[in-house]
């Protein structure tokens, strides 16, 4: 019991230390790199428009399709259906994970230097990002071994966490985009001049 408490304290201490040292880390640039911002905007668009819309995710994990196939199709078509849904579910989780990772890297490099964030909010955001990445890993393993229909509950929790992370990134991008555009326009004007 004491060992567990000590381990927990060490983990919490490490998280706080990492958050503080990262905060004091690299000096902020005047404006975020335009390329980073474009990349983050793309990742956010892919998540919000392509990967996270509820209607798409609900269709992907819809049990009605599975019940229909089990009722009307022969065994080999049932197998084909399960294999296809599993393949797509794993690809979806992998894509969500990649985009979330991209947003996290963007946050580490750029946005928090510009946003007046308290340590508390930063730790909360780091927790959201890491728990989301962990949830994606767990989902991948669960889908691989137990099929896409065993994880519907976890999918909804993951989507809610992803939406929170997207909102935070949206705020950061909202703050950064005008500055980056001005810098970019300034560069263009110098090149033209």
């Amino acid at each position, binding site marked *: 019991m004491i060992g567990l408490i000590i381990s927990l304290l060490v983990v919490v201490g490490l998280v706080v230390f990492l958050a503080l040292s990262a905060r004091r880390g690299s000096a902020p640039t005047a404006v975020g790199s335009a390329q980073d911002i474009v990349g983050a905007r793309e990742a956010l668009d*892919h998540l919000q428009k392509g990967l996270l819309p509820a209607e798409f995710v609900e269709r*992907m994990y819809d049990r*009605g399709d599975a019940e*229909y196939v089990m009722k009307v199709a022969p065994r080999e078509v049932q197998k084909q259906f399960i294999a296809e849904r599993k*393949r797509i579910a794993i690809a*979806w989780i992998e894509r969500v994970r990649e985009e979330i990772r991209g947003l996290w890297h963007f946050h580490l490099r750029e946005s928090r230097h510009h946003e007046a964030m308290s340590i508390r909010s930063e730790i909360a955001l780091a927790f959201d990002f890491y728990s989301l990445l962990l949830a994606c890993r767990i989902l991948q393993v669960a889908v691989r071994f137990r099929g896409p229909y065993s994880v519907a509950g976890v999918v909804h929790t993951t989507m809610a966490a992803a939406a929170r992370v997207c909102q935070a990134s949206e705020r950061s991008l909202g703050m950064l985009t005008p500055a980056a555009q001005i810098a970019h326009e300034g560069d263009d004007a110098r090149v033209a001049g």
Partner: protein
Amino acid sequence: MEVVRAAEDLRRRTLSGIADPLDRLIYLASMRDYNTGLYHHAGLAMKFGDDVACEALADCHREAYRQLLGSSLESMVAQLETYALRSGTAPKEMISTWKGLEPYRVAMPAKSDPLATDFVCSNVKIALSILESRLPGQPQPPR
């Protein structure tokens, strides 16, 4: 605003006669030039101009795609069955051609999300397999 009006015109005059999203998707994809990716519709272009007509067709194509993405597998099977009946091709021949050539892949709108497109194509594949299993002489599902 012109594009919205042109799309409404297209829905009212042409697409209202094509009920299923699969039929609409294939019809609208056939309006698209393979080389340029631009859509052409003589009547609509005459009324609204080439650019507006092209945008309106693209909008309706994306709409049909979203509807197909939202279709259940059962509905997809029904849509394929209706499509085969309407095309006048023997179901066996159509299923075999669609399984071999996968023509539905080129019917997707440009810039649609690759994973969503993969999902639609996967559903079409499963629906084709279900239809194939219903052809005479095929093994029946376990009861």
